[in-house]
Structure formats: C-alpha cells, structure tokens
C-alpha cells in the first residue's frame, strides 16, 4: 500500500499543467473535507441543479459550456442529468477533468466528468469535445479512459459534468 500511495502522490505532484487545470485541482483538494459522496439531500440536489443551469444554456446540447472536455453520452438524455446518474447506475468517485469557461461570469471552472457505470451504454446524445484531453500518460486528463475506478463495473452508461470549483 505504501508504494501505491507514494505512486499516486507522485502522479499528483506532476500535475502542474500549463492551463492550471491540475494545479487548481490541487487547491480544490486541499480545501475540501473528506465527505461521503452519497446520499445527498435529494431535494436540495434538484434545486441546486436547477439553479446551476439557469441562463447557462441547454444542458442537453453538446455545446453546453460544461461539456468542453466531454466524451460520451449526456446523462441528461439517459435518465440522469448534468450532475445526476440514471437510476441503477453507479456514479464513479473518480473522473477526468477539464477547464471550461462559464458563459455568464466568464470565469474558468474545473469540471469533473464522472462516468455513470454498471449498465451498458445509453447511446443517446453522444457528445465529444476534447478541450484539454491528453493521452494516457496524463491519466487524469484522458477522456478515453473508462473512469469507473471505485465502482464495481467498468461498463459506462453515460457521463455527467460536475463543477469541482473555480480555477484561480
């Protein structure tokens, strides 16, 4: 385990991308407490999602601002939403990340593209944008990896786009 932890740490240490994506990610990490991911209060989750989308464009369109580094089927077309997995799938606690510009405040946000795993692919609203996509040697930025680490199946149903924080 020690070797493993060291290896992950080393990988994290290398993350100082010119776009600041992972430098920023590092900052998000430091500020965040280790909280259970689920369950979240459902009503507030709905409210959040609705508020977050107000005036930001159409989350069912591949042009939606959060999808700048997207690759997969939009969960919003598959029984989920931009931040929610469809019923019966598992949201991966891991993801590749991108940096996308908000259309209203003009700020750059770190977006985590979390795969919803455990059912065969939904196939609807396939969307591929590759901003920030890098090969496997920059694993955290590779949108071709199946990001189901930490779930019990590497079959991807659809992909969400979760705001992780502001890029400083």
């Amino acid at each position, binding site marked *: 385990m020690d070797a493993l932890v060291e290896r*992950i740490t080393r990988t994290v240490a290398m993350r100082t991308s010119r776009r600041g994506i992972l430098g920023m990610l590092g900052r998000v990490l430091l500020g965040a407490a280790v909280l259970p991911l689920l369950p979240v209060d459902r009503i507030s989750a709905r409210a959040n999602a609705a508020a977050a989308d107000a005036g930001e464009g159409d989350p069912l369109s591949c042009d939606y601002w959060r999808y700048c580094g997207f690759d997969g089927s939009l969960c919003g077309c598959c*029984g989920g*939403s931009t931040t*929610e997995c*469809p*019923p*019966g799938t*598992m949201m991966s606690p891991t993801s590749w990340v991108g940096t996308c510009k908000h259309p209203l405040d003009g700020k750059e946000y770190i977006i985590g593209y979390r795969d919803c795993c455990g059912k*065969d692919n939904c*196939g609807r609203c396939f969307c591929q944008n590759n901003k920030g996509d890098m090969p496997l040697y920059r694993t955290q930025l590779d949108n071709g990896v199946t990001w189901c680490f930490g779930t019990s199946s590497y079959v991807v149903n659809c992909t969400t786009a979760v705001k992780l924080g502001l890029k400083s």
Partner: protein
Amino acid sequence: MRIRLGAASGIIFAAWLVAALSSAQAPPPEGVRVRELGPIGPHWVFLVSPAGADSELSTKIEIVDGDSLQLLGLLTGGLLSTAALSPDRKFIYMADTFYSRGSRGDRTDVISIYDARRLAPVHEVVIPAKRQQHIPPDSSALTITPDGRFLLVANLTPATSVTVVDVNSNKVAGEIDTAGCAGIVMAGARRFNSICGDGALLSIRFDDRGKAAASRRMARPFFDPEKDPVFSVPAVIGKRAYYASYHGMVYPVDWEADPPIAGAPWPMLSGEDRKAGWRPGGYQPLAAYAPGKLIYILMHQGGEWTHKQAGTEVWVYNIEQRRRVDKIVLPRPGSEVYVTPDRDPRMFVVSLPELNGPPSAPILQSFSTASGRYLGALDQLPGFPLWIFGPARAM
C-alpha cells in the same frame, strides 16, 4: 491461487481507492447523486431492444415516461432477454441468458429481479439454460400469474416447455411440458393457453408446486395455419381473446372456457380494402384497449408474406360491433403498437429505420387515442426496440 489472492486484495484496494480518490478529488460542491424513479405511471412504457446493430449480447429495456416523452432509465441484460412487471409494479423481471465469454463459453440463464424505483438488481434466480431465444420478443415468452406469485418462462430446445419460478422463494418450482405448443398467455389464476401447430389451443392448469395439474386441448383448431396464420399474441378483452391473422381476419376465442372455445371469425378488411392491398403487419401489430372494447392494428399495403412490414396506419375496431371505428394515419410507419390501459389512454408506436433505407435511429411516437392526434415523439431510441409493454392494468 494467484487469482484468488489477486481478487481479495483487489477488494481491499478498491475500498482504499474509493476513499483515496474521494479525498483526492474532493466531493464536488454540487449535489451529485444517482436518481431514483417515482412509482410507475399509467403512461409509462417499457421498450425492449433485444439486439443492436453491432451486438446481440445485451438486451436493453428502455423505460419511458409517455407523457413527457423522456427516457427515465435503462435496464441492460443478456442475450435476447424478455421482461415482465410484477402486478404491484414494484419489481421488473428480466429473463436473461449470459455466456461466460460473451458470445461463447458456459451458458447461464437467470431471472434478474430489479427494484422498479432504483432499477437495481435485488434478486436473481438461476433457471434451466434453455429459455427460448426469439426475435422479436413478446409477452408470451415471460408471463407472471395475476397474483404475482409465479413467473412462467418459455423454453425452446426446440421442444417447448415452461419453467415455473416461484417469486416468493426465488426458486425454480418446476417445469411444464407444453407438448410442442408455443407461448404462454394467462387465462386464469393458475392457467395459461398455448397455440399448437395445427391451430388449436392447449390449456394447462398448474399447481403451486409448478407442476401441470390438467391439460386440455381444443377439439378442433380455431384457425387454419395453412390458410391464414394468426399472429402469436392475442388481444385479451374481458373473457375473450382476439387473434389477428396475416390475411386480416379476427378470430375470437372464449378464453375462460377450459379448453377455450372458438368464436365466429370476422373480417377486418372490406372488399375494397382487400383490393387496395391492405394487410396487418409489424413486429407487434395488435394492441387491446379493454375498457373501450377496442383493438388497434397496424396496417400497410403489400402482398402476401409482408406480415412483418411496418404499418402506415393504425385501424381501430370495436370488437362488439365488429367494425372499424377509427383510423390513425402515422407520421412515420410503425412496427409496434401499444395502448395504455387507463381511462385517458395513449397509443404508442415504435418506428424502426427502413431495412434498405438510409440509416436512422428508431423513434417512439405518441398519440391521443381519443382524437387520434399525434402528440410527439422520443427520438434516438437506443438499439432496435421490437416490443413495447406497460403496466397490465390501470391501478
């Protein structure tokens, strides 16, 4: 040994990983979750896509809210799976076939039991590995008793039989020989009918141990398969079942009699219709609306043996008056028709891409049955849905 150790340490590692990566990536400030569904609504439909263009290993059940025309979620199963709902609508059953190496290897057939709100598997019953493999799927390959106690699974080896699964104990109760007759359509609490090759129905009563208790066959066929074959699945309305035939006849059967008793057939087509080449067809050409004593049938113009061709219109018949009462022209030809059983019914029609036409994705069209008005469509249906079903009765 290596592998066992690997698997065990894998579990530990996975657990560690979840923790490590949760902290490494931080819980996002937004609420993220896995959705759950509300109770199954009267206009929800389940579309069964047994095979896609590229693979036949993974059947999809697409759950659609027919009012908003939104895809609510998917179940993904195995090879040419079938599905059924529990009468209380709390569970969705799939009959699945899996091979240990995808398209080869050891075969395992199971009933997968899903919680209808979470769409998550809650139980599994391994069944004898001989369930019927057929395209299109239909309701006669997996049926639940009206009390929700037993699931009946059609087998084909190519001898026919039925596996009885006790859903209370999640065990296989028994197997019933259907003497070469095919399909399972319930006709009582513990009774179903199957069609035989000569056009007669076989009625089988069974007991709670999943054994056949009595088996009675119609004295004479109710249709002549040589002259005018019927589509497999009848519209059951009240105490009668109505079969539609390739040549456009309706064959009523007194369904509650044991054995069933043939009624007097009547034609769906006028002489003029016939001259114009109208004919029923599709993968699921017939639907029932019991409260209105109506049957709905997909019609197209074509020659003999076009019984799988998509319909351009849906013709509606009152089965008491034995006459056509409505005709709905489809915006796009459809291969499957289904009508919801509630008091404000919708008609749903699945349109598949044309076989030799330009590639396109299937769509689900919705109609008001009262006015015949087109209400909209859900596009980009995954795979090729070949069967629509819904809650059996209005609740």
